[in-house]
């Protein structure tokens, strides 16, 4: 694994794609204590190890690590999290236009994928879910909304996600869910964490 220094206490592991991020994160998270990392944080093409006492030593040890394909294929113990979704979002037609298909087909495709949470960010519990087939990237709205309701199921770039709380946002909204993504009263407040498997399931329109 190739890593570069970030300040006094952190290193950044570089990955070629999201699949490698997911695999690298799983491995680095499992070995966080061995590396002396307080934080292991994945993003789009990198994984950060922060809170290190010996970042130089960590860069050196990582250079001898080779990512095993079996790390990438290790099944998540948590199973698949199902997100019951009403496909009633205001941008369904826009996504259909970008994909060159119908709204009904967008709904079918969105449900057909088993997604993996590549990383979280933007807000506590906001999970960037990856797995959409190549070619189905979605452009953000040119004019971001000032208020996106909590529970909005959305698409942007190569990702789908759910807004855990109301916030401004530029993603294309295709549906809503009543699942709570972030519960501070729980020991594990985030429903979706990096590595989680996710499936969206249509519920009846009411």
């Amino acid at each position, binding site marked *: 694994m190739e890593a570069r220094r970030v300040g*006094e206490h952190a290193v950044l592991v570089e990955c070629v794609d999201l699949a490698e991020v997911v695999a690298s994160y799983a491995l680095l998270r499992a070995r966080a204590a061995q590396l002396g990392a307080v934080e292991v944080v994945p993003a789009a093409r990198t994984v950060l190890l922060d809170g290190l006492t010996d970042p130089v030593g960590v860069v*050196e040890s990582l250079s001898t690590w080779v990512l095993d394909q079996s790390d990438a294929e290790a099944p998540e113990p948590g199973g698949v999290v199902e997100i019951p979704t009403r496909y009633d979002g205001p941008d369904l037609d826009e996504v259909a236009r970008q994909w060159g298909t119908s709204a009904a087909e967008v709904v079918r495709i969105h449900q057909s994928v088993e997604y993996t949470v590549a990383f979280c960010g933007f807000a506590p519990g906001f999970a960037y879910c990856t797995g959409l087939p190549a070619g189905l990237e979605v452009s953000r709205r040119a004019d971001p909304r000032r208020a996106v309701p909590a529970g909005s199921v959305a698409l942007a770039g190569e990702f789908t996600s759910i807004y855990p709380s109301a916030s401004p946002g530029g993603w294309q909204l295709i549906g809503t869910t009543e699942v709570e993504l972030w519960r501070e009263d729980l020991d594990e407040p985030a429903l979706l964490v990096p590595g989680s498997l996710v499936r969206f399931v249509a519920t009846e329109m009411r």
Partner: protein
Amino acid sequence: MKGAAHVVVLDPGALTTIQDLGRPGHAHLGVPRSGALDVPALRLANRLVGNPEGAPALETTLTGIRFEVRRGCRFAVSGAPCSVRIDGRDHAWGSAVSVGPGAVVQVGAAAAGLRSYVAFAGGIAVEQVLGSSSTDLLSGLGPAPLAAGDELTLGPSYAEPPMATAIPTSLGRVLHLDPGPRADWFTEESLARVGGETYEVGAASNRIGLRLSGPALERRRDNGLPAELPTEPMVLGAVQVPPNGQPVVFLADHPTTGGYPVIGVVRGADLPVCAQARPGDRITLRWAEPARAEPGRPRGS
């Protein structure tokens, strides 16, 4: 920890929040670390009243705070030097004092710097979120910023012997940066600018970031890198450079990920300089190690 309040806020000033050492360890869930911006000052205030150094205390912003005491307690002020008045009588900054019911305390405007810390013996008892009582202004986690009428309850006093007094130390106006992780995205001229150029602290600076304005830090056009950086995890002290070239230093409430390249990271020892910098102050950037051959790319064997 429930019981009658010890303190009632009369006027929280421009912004007063409860801060401890924050909630590191949850960035992978999108949770900022938060916590006191000037950590040495928080530790000092707590030592003055015999608390563990990371006990929850108040962080004021520029204009101090006024509060009324309901139950006897002991407090001390550190961080930005300021006047401390108890029922109109002056008391020294940097030393603990006991106050009884009915006393009105005015922590005055900062004479220098920006953020003062008010620690109470026993610490402020407030519900924790992910192991911290800190207010996070980015994500909204933790208690809301204080408002007039808010009541604060303290924990039981600790048995630790308090430190006697402190004297204000003057902070420099220099931020020392380690290069990278994306120093290779910037022109040689821009990298040279970080070696001594002076920037002005912007009015939009807050607990999330210190916004600097001055000579633009420009990206190289000839390096075969992608047009935009894929979203990357961010660290405390990261100096992120958006397309306008005006650097932003990420402080405690910074987002856990960001999409602009980071030219360097401020040394931890200089973070209090960021915490105490006022809008309009001039801050000089310097490389921590001027002779590093290849910024951001120290090689292993």
